[in-house]
Protein backbone atom coordinates (compact mmCIF):
# COMPACT_ATOMS: atom_id res chain seq x y z
CA UNK A 1 0.00 0.00 0.00
CA UNK A 2 1.55 3.33 -0.96
CA UNK A 3 1.77 6.30 1.33
CA UNK A 4 -1.04 8.23 -0.39
CA UNK A 5 -3.46 5.36 -0.05
CA UNK A 6 -2.50 4.93 3.61
CA UNK A 7 -3.27 8.60 4.21
CA UNK A 8 -6.66 8.32 2.57
CA UNK A 9 -7.44 5.22 4.58
CA UNK A 10 -6.34 6.94 7.77
CA UNK A 11 -8.56 9.94 7.11
CA UNK A 12 -11.49 7.66 6.32
CA UNK A 13 -10.97 5.71 9.53
CA UNK A 14 -10.78 8.89 11.57
CA UNK A 15 -13.87 10.35 9.91
CA UNK A 16 -15.84 7.19 10.46
CA UNK A 17 -14.90 6.96 14.09
CA UNK A 18 -15.62 10.65 14.72
CA UNK A 19 -18.97 10.32 13.04
CA UNK A 20 -19.97 7.45 15.29
CA UNK A 21 -18.88 8.73 18.63
CA UNK A 22 -21.12 10.46 21.13
CA UNK A 23 -20.71 14.12 21.76
CA UNK A 24 -18.48 14.59 24.76
CA UNK A 25 -20.16 14.97 28.10
CA UNK A 26 -23.36 13.01 27.59
CA UNK A 27 -24.44 11.10 30.66
CA UNK A 28 -25.94 8.32 28.58
CA UNK A 29 -25.26 7.06 25.09
CA UNK A 30 -27.58 8.36 22.40
CA UNK A 31 -27.36 5.96 19.45
CA UNK A 32 -28.50 6.44 15.89
CA UNK A 33 -32.11 5.57 16.67
CA UNK A 34 -32.32 8.08 19.51
CA UNK A 35 -30.58 10.77 17.48
CA UNK A 36 -33.02 10.23 14.66
CA UNK A 37 -35.91 10.77 17.06
CA UNK A 38 -34.24 13.86 18.48
CA UNK A 39 -34.11 15.28 14.97
CA UNK A 40 -37.87 14.96 14.79
CA UNK A 41 -38.44 16.65 18.13
CA UNK A 42 -36.25 19.69 17.74
CA UNK A 43 -36.14 22.51 16.88
CA UNK A 44 -39.69 23.77 17.23
CA UNK A 45 -39.40 25.78 14.02
CA UNK A 46 -41.62 28.53 12.74
CA UNK A 47 -45.37 28.61 13.21
CA UNK A 48 -46.88 26.85 10.19
CA UNK A 49 -48.89 29.03 7.83
CA UNK A 50 -52.68 28.98 7.94
CA UNK A 51 -53.92 29.61 4.42
CA UNK A 52 -57.53 29.35 5.62
CA UNK A 53 -56.99 32.68 7.40
CA UNK A 54 -55.43 35.34 5.23
CA UNK A 55 -55.16 37.58 8.28
CA UNK A 56 -53.29 34.98 10.31
CA UNK A 57 -50.06 36.96 10.34
CA UNK A 58 -51.51 40.45 10.02
CA UNK A 59 -50.28 42.61 12.93
CA UNK A 60 -53.49 44.64 12.94
CA UNK A 61 -55.58 41.49 13.18
CA UNK A 62 -53.36 40.17 15.96
CA UNK A 63 -53.73 43.40 17.90
CA UNK A 64 -57.50 43.33 17.56
CA UNK A 65 -57.49 39.67 18.55
CA UNK A 66 -55.32 40.46 21.54
CA UNK A 67 -57.88 43.00 22.68
CA UNK A 68 -60.84 40.71 22.04
CA UNK A 69 -59.16 37.85 23.92
CA UNK A 70 -59.53 39.88 27.11
CA UNK A 71 -62.82 41.60 26.23
CA UNK A 72 -65.57 40.37 28.55
CA UNK A 73 -68.22 42.19 26.54
CA UNK A 74 -68.20 39.28 24.10
CA UNK A 75 -69.97 37.17 26.71
CA UNK A 76 -73.67 37.12 27.52
CA UNK A 77 -73.26 38.48 31.04
CA UNK A 78 -70.28 40.71 30.27
CA UNK A 79 -68.09 38.91 32.77
CA UNK A 80 -66.38 36.15 30.81
CA UNK A 81 -63.60 36.41 28.27
CA UNK A 82 -61.24 33.94 26.64
CA UNK A 83 -58.75 34.84 29.36
CA UNK A 84 -61.18 33.69 32.07
CA UNK A 85 -60.28 30.06 31.39
CA UNK A 86 -57.12 30.49 29.31
CA UNK A 87 -55.37 32.35 32.11
CA UNK A 88 -52.28 34.11 30.72
CA UNK A 89 -50.26 33.67 33.90
CA UNK A 90 -51.15 29.96 33.90
CA UNK A 91 -49.62 29.22 30.49
CA UNK A 92 -52.93 30.31 28.96
CA UNK A 93 -54.50 27.28 30.59
CA UNK A 94 -56.84 26.94 33.55
CA UNK A 95 -55.90 26.27 37.18
CA UNK A 96 -59.31 24.58 37.51
CA UNK A 97 -59.90 21.06 36.25
CA UNK A 98 -63.12 21.77 34.40
CA UNK A 99 -63.54 25.11 32.73
CA UNK A 100 -66.09 27.45 34.25
CA UNK A 101 -67.47 30.24 32.15
CA UNK A 102 -71.19 30.89 32.06
CA UNK A 103 -71.55 27.36 33.38
CA UNK A 104 -69.43 24.38 34.32
CA UNK A 105 -67.82 22.93 31.23
CA UNK A 106 -67.19 19.30 30.43
CA UNK A 107 -63.48 19.60 29.74
CA UNK A 108 -60.33 21.28 30.91
CA UNK A 109 -59.25 24.47 29.12
CA UNK A 110 -55.99 23.47 27.41
CA UNK A 111 -52.92 25.65 27.20
CA UNK A 112 -52.71 27.93 24.20
CA UNK A 113 -48.91 28.04 24.16
CA UNK A 114 -47.76 26.79 20.72
CA UNK A 115 -51.38 26.09 19.82
CA UNK A 116 -50.82 27.31 16.26
CA UNK A 117 -48.68 24.25 15.52
CA UNK A 118 -51.72 21.99 15.68
CA UNK A 119 -53.51 20.07 12.96
CA UNK A 120 -56.78 19.88 14.85
CA UNK A 121 -58.02 22.15 17.63
CA UNK A 122 -59.82 21.35 20.85
CA UNK A 123 -59.53 18.13 22.86
CA UNK A 124 -61.81 16.37 20.39
CA UNK A 125 -60.56 18.19 17.34
CA UNK A 126 -63.84 19.96 16.74
CA UNK A 127 -62.11 22.56 14.57
CA UNK A 128 -59.73 22.32 11.65
CA UNK A 129 -58.35 25.83 12.05
CA UNK A 130 -57.45 28.01 14.97
CA UNK A 131 -59.96 30.66 13.92
CA UNK A 132 -62.74 28.10 13.74
CA UNK A 133 -61.83 26.89 17.20
CA UNK A 134 -61.92 30.45 18.57
CA UNK A 135 -65.54 30.82 17.45
CA UNK A 136 -66.87 27.85 19.41
CA UNK A 137 -66.58 29.18 22.96
CA UNK A 138 -68.06 32.55 22.00
CA UNK A 139 -71.51 31.03 21.49
CA UNK A 140 -71.25 27.98 23.74
CA UNK A 141 -73.78 28.56 26.55
CA UNK A 142 -71.33 27.07 29.07
CA UNK A 143 -68.45 29.28 27.96
CA UNK A 144 -69.01 32.90 26.88
CA UNK A 145 -72.65 32.27 25.95
CA UNK A 146 -72.66 35.15 23.48
CA UNK A 147 -74.23 35.47 20.08
CA UNK A 148 -72.84 36.66 16.79
CA UNK A 149 -75.57 39.30 16.44
CA UNK A 150 -74.65 40.82 19.79
CA UNK A 151 -70.97 40.70 18.89
CA UNK A 152 -71.65 42.51 15.61
CA UNK A 153 -73.66 45.10 17.54
CA UNK A 154 -70.69 45.64 19.82
CA UNK A 155 -68.52 46.58 16.84
CA UNK A 156 -71.14 49.04 15.60
CA UNK A 157 -71.54 50.59 19.02
CA UNK A 158 -67.87 50.94 19.99
CA UNK A 159 -66.03 53.39 17.73
CA UNK A 160 -62.62 52.07 18.78
CA UNK A 161 -63.58 48.52 17.88
CA UNK A 162 -65.14 49.68 14.62
CA UNK A 163 -61.96 51.53 13.66
CA UNK A 164 -59.77 48.55 14.52
CA UNK A 165 -62.01 46.24 12.52
CA UNK A 166 -62.06 48.46 9.46
CA UNK A 167 -58.30 48.96 9.54
CA UNK A 168 -57.89 45.23 8.99
CA UNK A 169 -61.00 43.93 7.27
CA UNK A 170 -62.46 46.94 5.48
CA UNK A 171 -65.85 48.53 6.07
CA UNK A 172 -67.93 47.00 8.84
CA UNK A 173 -70.89 45.26 7.15
CA UNK A 174 -74.19 47.05 7.30
CA UNK A 175 -76.40 45.66 10.06
CA UNK A 176 -79.24 45.22 7.57
CA UNK A 177 -77.15 42.75 5.61
CA UNK A 178 -78.30 39.28 6.61
CA UNK A 179 -74.75 37.93 6.50
CA UNK A 180 -73.26 40.86 8.42
CA UNK A 181 -73.15 39.09 11.78
CA UNK A 182 -71.56 35.99 10.30
CA UNK A 183 -68.90 38.04 8.55
CA UNK A 184 -68.00 39.99 11.68
CA UNK A 185 -68.11 36.82 13.75
CA UNK A 186 -65.68 35.05 11.43
CA UNK A 187 -63.29 37.98 11.47
CA UNK A 188 -63.39 38.01 15.26
CA UNK A 189 -62.25 34.38 15.14
CA UNK A 190 -59.55 35.17 12.62
CA UNK A 191 -58.33 38.06 14.77
CA UNK A 192 -58.17 35.97 17.93
CA UNK A 193 -56.33 33.27 15.99
CA UNK A 194 -53.82 35.85 14.76
CA UNK A 195 -53.16 36.78 18.39
CA UNK A 196 -52.88 33.17 19.50
CA UNK A 197 -50.28 32.54 16.81
CA UNK A 198 -47.99 34.84 18.80
CA UNK A 199 -48.09 32.57 21.84
CA UNK A 200 -44.98 30.63 20.95
CA UNK A 201 -42.34 29.32 23.29
CA UNK A 202 -39.52 27.33 21.75
CA UNK A 203 -35.75 27.21 22.17
CA UNK A 204 -35.81 25.25 25.39
CA UNK A 205 -32.78 23.78 27.11
CA UNK A 206 -33.72 20.51 25.45
CA UNK A 207 -33.45 22.19 22.04
CA UNK A 208 -29.99 23.48 22.91
CA UNK A 209 -28.95 19.98 23.92
CA UNK A 210 -30.43 18.42 20.79
CA UNK A 211 -28.64 20.93 18.57
CA UNK A 212 -25.34 20.23 20.30
CA UNK A 213 -25.77 16.48 20.01
CA UNK A 214 -26.75 16.71 16.35
CA UNK A 215 -23.53 18.52 15.55
CA UNK A 216 -21.39 16.55 18.01
CA UNK A 217 -20.54 19.74 19.86
CA UNK A 218 -19.77 19.67 23.54
CA UNK A 219 -20.99 23.25 23.79
CA UNK A 220 -24.67 22.91 24.63
CA UNK A 221 -24.56 19.41 26.06
CA UNK A 222 -24.47 20.93 29.52
CA UNK A 223 -27.92 22.42 28.84
CA UNK A 224 -29.33 19.19 30.26
CA UNK A 225 -28.24 17.78 33.59
CA UNK A 226 -27.27 14.13 33.86
CA UNK A 227 -30.68 13.34 35.29
CA UNK A 228 -32.44 15.17 32.46
CA UNK A 229 -30.35 13.31 29.88
CA UNK A 230 -31.25 10.00 31.45
CA UNK A 231 -34.89 11.07 31.43
CA UNK A 232 -34.66 12.03 27.77
CA UNK A 233 -33.18 8.66 26.93
CA UNK A 234 -36.03 6.94 28.76
CA UNK A 235 -38.52 9.17 26.96
CA UNK A 236 -37.12 8.05 23.61
CA UNK A 237 -36.78 4.37 24.47
CA UNK A 238 -38.33 2.27 27.22
CA UNK A 239 -41.01 4.73 28.29
CA UNK A 240 -42.25 4.76 24.68
CA UNK A 241 -43.49 8.34 24.98
CA UNK A 242 -42.72 9.17 21.36
CA UNK A 243 -45.42 6.84 20.15
CA UNK A 244 -47.75 9.81 20.54
CA UNK A 245 -45.61 12.71 21.71
CA UNK A 246 -43.68 13.07 18.48
CA UNK A 247 -42.80 15.96 16.22
CA UNK A 248 -41.41 19.39 17.10
CA UNK A 249 -44.27 20.26 19.42
CA UNK A 250 -44.13 16.89 21.20
CA UNK A 251 -47.54 15.82 19.92
CA UNK A 252 -48.77 13.91 16.90
CA UNK A 253 -51.80 16.23 16.92
CA UNK A 254 -53.94 13.11 16.65
CA UNK A 255 -56.33 11.36 19.03
CA UNK A 256 -55.94 8.44 21.39
CA UNK A 257 -57.97 6.73 24.05
CA UNK A 258 -55.54 6.37 26.93
CA UNK A 259 -58.28 5.29 29.36
CA UNK A 260 -57.51 8.17 31.69
CA UNK A 261 -59.96 8.02 34.59
CA UNK A 262 -62.62 10.74 34.46
CA UNK A 263 -62.66 13.69 36.82
CA UNK A 264 -65.22 13.17 39.62
CA UNK A 265 -67.36 15.95 38.15
CA UNK A 266 -66.62 15.06 34.53
CA UNK A 267 -68.47 12.96 31.98
CA UNK A 268 -67.62 9.28 31.94
CA UNK A 269 -68.86 8.92 28.38
CA UNK A 270 -67.32 11.95 26.68
CA UNK A 271 -67.27 10.97 22.98
CA UNK A 272 -64.09 12.97 22.35
CA UNK A 273 -62.88 12.64 18.78
CA UNK A 274 -66.05 10.82 17.69
CA UNK A 275 -68.00 13.99 18.37
CA UNK A 276 -65.20 16.22 17.12
CA UNK A 277 -65.25 14.67 13.65
CA UNK A 278 -69.01 15.13 13.36
CA UNK A 279 -68.68 18.73 14.48
CA UNK A 280 -65.93 19.75 12.12
CA UNK A 281 -67.50 18.04 9.14
CA UNK A 282 -70.86 19.67 9.82
CA UNK A 283 -69.65 23.16 10.54
CA UNK A 284 -70.15 26.14 8.27
CA UNK A 285 -66.77 27.37 9.48
CA UNK A 286 -64.65 24.42 8.34
CA UNK A 287 -61.73 24.89 5.99
CA UNK A 288 -63.78 23.96 2.93
CA UNK A 289 -66.59 26.34 3.92
CA UNK A 290 -67.50 29.70 2.47
CA UNK A 291 -65.66 31.65 5.16
CA UNK A 292 -62.36 29.91 4.59
CA UNK A 293 -59.64 31.59 2.57
CA UNK A 294 -58.40 28.23 1.25
CA UNK A 295 -61.47 26.14 0.45
CA UNK A 296 -59.66 23.59 -1.68
CA UNK A 297 -56.45 23.33 0.29
CA UNK A 298 -54.82 20.57 2.25
CA UNK A 299 -56.86 21.13 5.40
CA UNK A 300 -60.16 21.15 3.51
CA UNK A 301 -59.21 17.92 1.79
CA UNK A 302 -58.16 16.33 5.08
CA UNK A 303 -61.54 16.94 6.69
CA UNK A 304 -63.33 15.14 3.88
CA UNK A 305 -61.14 12.08 4.41
CA UNK A 306 -61.61 11.65 8.15
CA UNK A 307 -62.47 8.16 9.29
CA UNK A 308 -65.80 8.07 11.11
CA UNK A 309 -65.62 5.04 13.34
CA UNK A 310 -66.43 4.02 16.89
CA UNK A 311 -62.66 3.62 17.33
CA UNK A 312 -62.50 7.35 17.88
CA UNK A 313 -65.03 7.34 20.73
CA UNK A 314 -63.35 8.54 23.90
CA UNK A 315 -60.16 9.51 22.11
CA UNK A 316 -58.62 12.88 22.89
CA UNK A 317 -55.88 14.91 21.30
CA UNK A 318 -52.33 14.30 22.39
CA UNK A 319 -51.27 17.43 24.27
CA UNK A 320 -47.91 19.06 23.68
CA UNK A 321 -45.33 18.38 26.36
CA UNK A 322 -43.51 21.64 25.79
CA UNK A 323 -43.94 24.24 28.53
CA UNK A 324 -45.63 22.07 31.13
CA UNK A 325 -44.60 24.21 34.08
CA UNK A 326 -47.37 26.23 35.62
CA UNK A 327 -50.18 24.75 33.59
CA UNK A 328 -51.47 21.93 35.82
CA UNK A 329 -53.88 20.20 36.10
CA UNK A 330 -53.47 17.89 33.12
CA UNK A 331 -55.52 15.79 30.67
CA UNK A 332 -58.82 16.55 28.98
CA UNK A 333 -60.75 16.86 32.22
CA UNK A 334 -57.88 18.14 34.30
CA UNK A 335 -58.12 14.88 36.20
CA UNK A 336 -54.45 14.76 37.19
CA UNK A 337 -53.43 17.50 39.54
CA UNK A 338 -49.74 17.47 38.67
CA UNK A 339 -47.12 15.90 36.48
CA UNK A 340 -46.28 13.24 39.03
CA UNK A 341 -49.87 12.02 38.88
CA UNK A 342 -49.65 11.77 35.08
CA UNK A 343 -46.39 9.84 35.24
CA UNK A 344 -47.82 7.56 37.92
CA UNK A 345 -50.80 6.77 35.70
CA UNK A 346 -48.65 5.77 32.74
CA UNK A 347 -46.22 3.94 34.99
CA UNK A 348 -48.87 1.85 36.73
CA UNK A 349 -52.09 2.31 34.68
CA UNK A 350 -53.86 2.44 38.03
CA UNK A 351 -57.38 3.77 37.67
CA UNK A 352 -57.52 3.19 33.93
CA UNK A 353 -61.10 3.65 32.86
CA UNK A 354 -62.25 0.69 30.83
CA UNK A 355 -64.85 1.48 28.22
CA UNK A 356 -66.37 -0.65 25.53
CA UNK A 357 -64.60 1.24 22.78
CA UNK A 358 -61.14 1.01 21.34
CA UNK A 359 -58.23 1.92 23.58
CA UNK A 360 -54.57 2.11 22.79
CA UNK A 361 -53.44 -1.48 23.06
CA UNK A 362 -49.81 -0.55 23.32
CA UNK A 363 -50.25 1.13 26.69
CA UNK A 364 -48.96 -1.14 29.42
CA UNK A 365 -47.52 -0.34 32.84
CA UNK A 366 -43.99 0.99 32.44
CA UNK A 367 -42.88 -0.08 35.93
CA UNK A 368 -40.10 2.46 36.13
CA UNK A 369 -38.02 2.81 39.25
CA UNK A 370 -38.45 5.89 41.45
CA UNK A 371 -35.16 7.28 40.18
CA UNK A 372 -36.24 6.70 36.57
CA UNK A 373 -39.52 8.50 37.20
CA UNK A 374 -37.53 11.31 38.74
CA UNK A 375 -35.30 11.47 35.65
CA UNK A 376 -38.31 11.50 33.33
CA UNK A 377 -39.89 14.29 35.34
CA UNK A 378 -36.63 16.22 35.26
CA UNK A 379 -36.39 15.88 31.48
CA UNK A 380 -39.91 17.17 30.96
CA UNK A 381 -38.90 20.23 32.93
CA UNK A 382 -36.23 20.97 30.34
CA UNK A 383 -38.89 21.65 27.69
CA UNK A 384 -39.61 25.14 28.97
CA UNK A 385 -39.16 27.58 26.11
CA UNK A 386 -38.11 31.19 26.17
CA UNK A 387 -40.58 33.36 28.05
CA UNK A 388 -43.36 35.15 26.18
CA UNK A 389 -43.27 38.88 25.70
CA UNK A 390 -44.94 40.10 28.91
CA UNK A 391 -47.15 42.45 26.92
CA UNK A 392 -49.00 39.39 25.60
CA UNK A 393 -50.10 38.47 29.10
CA UNK A 394 -52.20 41.57 29.66
CA UNK A 395 -54.80 43.45 27.63
CA UNK A 396 -53.29 45.96 25.19
CA UNK A 397 -53.94 49.68 25.46
CA UNK A 398 -56.64 49.44 22.80
CA UNK A 399 -57.85 47.33 19.88
CA UNK A 400 -55.72 49.18 17.30
CA UNK A 401 -51.95 49.31 16.97
CA UNK A 402 -52.25 53.10 17.04
CA UNK A 403 -53.88 53.02 20.50
Amino acid at each position, binding site marked *: *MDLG*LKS*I*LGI*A*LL*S*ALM*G*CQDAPGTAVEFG*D*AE*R*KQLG*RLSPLGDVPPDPTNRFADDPNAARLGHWLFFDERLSLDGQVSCATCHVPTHAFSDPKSLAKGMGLGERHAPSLINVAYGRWFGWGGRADSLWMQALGPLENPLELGGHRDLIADLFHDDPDLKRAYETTFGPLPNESDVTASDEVFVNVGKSIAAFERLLVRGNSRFDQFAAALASNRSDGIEALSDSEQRGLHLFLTRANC*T*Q*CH*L*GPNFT*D*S*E*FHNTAAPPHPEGRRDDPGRFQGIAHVQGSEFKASGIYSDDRNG*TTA*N*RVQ*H*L*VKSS*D*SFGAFKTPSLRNLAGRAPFMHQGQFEDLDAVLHFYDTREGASVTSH*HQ*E*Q*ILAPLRLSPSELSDLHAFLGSLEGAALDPSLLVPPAGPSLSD
Partner: protein
Amino acid sequence: MKPHALILLLLSACGGAEALDASAVVEQDSNAANFVLSVRHTPAVMPLNAEFEVRFQLLDMEGRALDVEVEDVSVDADMPEHGHGMTVFPSVRREGSEYVAGPMLFHMSGRWEVYVDVRRGAVTERAQVAWTLD
Protein backbone atom coordinates in the same frame (compact mmCIF):
# COMPACT_ATOMS: atom_id res chain seq x y z
CA MET B 1 -10.03 -6.61 1.16
CA LYS B 2 -9.12 -3.81 -1.18
CA PRO B 3 -8.53 -0.45 0.53
CA HIS B 4 -11.33 1.35 -1.31
CA ALA B 5 -13.77 -1.33 -0.22
CA LEU B 6 -12.68 -0.85 3.36
CA ILE B 7 -13.15 2.89 3.07
CA LEU B 8 -16.69 2.43 1.79
CA LEU B 9 -17.45 0.00 4.59
CA LEU B 10 -16.19 2.42 7.21
CA LEU B 11 -18.05 5.36 5.79
CA SER B 12 -21.29 3.42 5.98
CA ALA B 13 -20.60 2.02 9.42
CA CYS B 14 -22.51 4.71 11.27
CA GLY B 15 -25.79 3.74 9.67
CA GLY B 16 -28.73 6.06 10.16
CA ALA B 17 -29.65 6.20 6.50
CA GLU B 18 -33.01 4.62 5.76
CA ALA B 19 -33.10 5.72 2.18
CA LEU B 20 -35.31 3.72 -0.09
CA ASP B 21 -34.75 4.24 -3.74
CA ALA B 22 -37.66 6.23 -5.06
CA SER B 23 -37.84 3.88 -7.97
CA ALA B 24 -37.85 0.79 -5.74
CA VAL B 25 -40.84 -1.40 -6.36
CA VAL B 26 -42.39 -3.91 -4.00
CA GLU B 27 -44.41 -6.64 -5.66
CA GLN B 28 -46.80 -8.79 -3.72
CA ASP B 29 -49.21 -11.46 -4.87
CA SER B 30 -52.80 -10.97 -3.77
CA ASN B 31 -54.02 -13.28 -1.04
CA ALA B 32 -55.69 -15.62 -3.52
CA ALA B 33 -52.88 -15.19 -6.04
CA ASN B 34 -55.14 -13.82 -8.74
CA PHE B 35 -53.26 -10.55 -9.24
CA VAL B 36 -50.05 -8.78 -8.29
CA LEU B 37 -49.82 -5.55 -6.36
CA SER B 38 -46.82 -3.55 -7.51
CA VAL B 39 -46.14 -0.63 -5.18
CA ARG B 40 -43.69 2.13 -5.91
CA HIS B 41 -42.26 3.90 -2.87
CA THR B 42 -43.50 7.43 -3.11
CA PRO B 43 -41.98 9.29 -1.41
CA ALA B 44 -38.72 7.42 -1.07
CA VAL B 45 -38.94 7.44 2.71
CA MET B 46 -42.30 6.96 4.34
CA PRO B 47 -43.00 10.07 6.39
CA LEU B 48 -44.04 9.78 10.01
CA ASN B 49 -47.20 11.73 10.86
CA ALA B 50 -47.32 13.57 7.55
CA GLU B 51 -49.68 12.94 4.69
CA PHE B 52 -48.42 11.21 1.57
CA GLU B 53 -49.67 9.31 -1.45
CA VAL B 54 -48.89 5.78 -2.47
CA ARG B 55 -48.61 4.73 -6.12
CA PHE B 56 -49.23 1.25 -7.33
CA GLN B 57 -50.09 -0.89 -10.30
CA LEU B 58 -52.34 -3.91 -10.47
CA LEU B 59 -51.05 -6.69 -12.70
CA ASP B 60 -52.27 -10.07 -13.68
CA MET B 61 -50.08 -13.06 -12.96
CA GLU B 62 -48.39 -12.63 -16.33
CA GLY B 63 -47.44 -9.05 -15.55
CA ARG B 64 -50.07 -7.34 -17.70
CA ALA B 65 -52.08 -4.42 -16.35
CA LEU B 66 -55.28 -5.55 -14.74
CA ASP B 67 -58.45 -4.09 -16.20
CA VAL B 68 -60.09 -2.72 -13.06
CA GLU B 69 -62.09 0.47 -12.75
CA VAL B 70 -60.79 2.86 -10.10
CA GLU B 71 -64.14 2.68 -8.31
CA ASP B 72 -63.44 -0.98 -7.66
CA VAL B 73 -60.13 -0.35 -5.95
CA SER B 74 -59.88 0.70 -2.32
CA VAL B 75 -56.93 1.26 -0.03
CA ASP B 76 -56.59 1.26 3.73
CA ALA B 77 -53.87 0.76 6.30
CA ASP B 78 -53.74 -0.69 9.77
CA MET B 79 -51.40 -1.19 12.70
CA PRO B 80 -52.09 -4.76 13.82
CA GLU B 81 -50.06 -4.44 17.00
CA HIS B 82 -51.91 -1.28 17.98
CA GLY B 83 -55.34 -2.44 16.96
CA HIS B 84 -56.14 0.62 14.92
CA GLY B 85 -55.69 2.08 11.50
CA MET B 86 -55.24 5.49 9.98
CA THR B 87 -57.30 8.49 11.05
CA VAL B 88 -58.05 9.26 7.43
CA PHE B 89 -59.32 7.14 4.56
CA PRO B 90 -57.63 7.64 1.23
CA SER B 91 -59.29 8.23 -2.09
CA VAL B 92 -58.01 6.36 -5.12
CA ARG B 93 -57.48 7.94 -8.50
CA ARG B 94 -55.97 6.67 -11.69
CA GLU B 95 -53.02 8.22 -13.48
CA GLY B 96 -52.29 6.27 -16.64
CA SER B 97 -51.36 2.75 -15.69
CA GLU B 98 -50.94 3.67 -12.02
CA TYR B 99 -53.39 4.04 -9.19
CA VAL B 100 -52.68 6.74 -6.62
CA ALA B 101 -54.12 6.58 -3.10
CA GLY B 102 -54.15 9.51 -0.72
CA PRO B 103 -54.13 11.03 1.72
CA MET B 104 -52.29 8.34 3.64
CA LEU B 105 -51.23 9.18 7.17
CA PHE B 106 -49.03 6.97 9.34
CA HIS B 107 -49.36 8.95 12.54
CA MET B 108 -47.45 6.56 14.78
CA SER B 109 -44.21 4.68 14.42
CA GLY B 110 -44.35 0.90 14.17
CA ARG B 111 -45.53 -1.66 11.67
CA TRP B 112 -48.18 -0.62 9.20
CA GLU B 113 -49.99 -2.94 6.83
CA VAL B 114 -51.37 -1.39 3.68
CA TYR B 115 -54.35 -3.15 2.14
CA VAL B 116 -55.38 -2.86 -1.47
CA ASP B 117 -58.78 -4.39 -2.14
CA VAL B 118 -59.84 -5.11 -5.70
CA ARG B 119 -63.46 -5.90 -6.45
CA ARG B 120 -64.23 -7.95 -9.51
CA GLY B 121 -67.83 -8.98 -9.79
CA ALA B 122 -68.98 -10.42 -6.49
CA VAL B 123 -65.45 -11.11 -5.31
CA THR B 124 -63.21 -8.72 -3.43
CA GLU B 125 -59.62 -9.80 -3.18
CA ARG B 126 -56.92 -8.22 -1.08
CA ALA B 127 -53.22 -7.73 -1.51
CA GLN B 128 -51.19 -6.31 1.33
CA VAL B 129 -47.74 -4.99 1.96
CA ALA B 130 -46.17 -3.89 5.23
CA TRP B 131 -43.86 -1.06 6.16
CA THR B 132 -42.24 -0.38 9.48
CA LEU B 133 -41.58 3.18 10.52
CA ASP B 134 -39.05 3.59 13.27
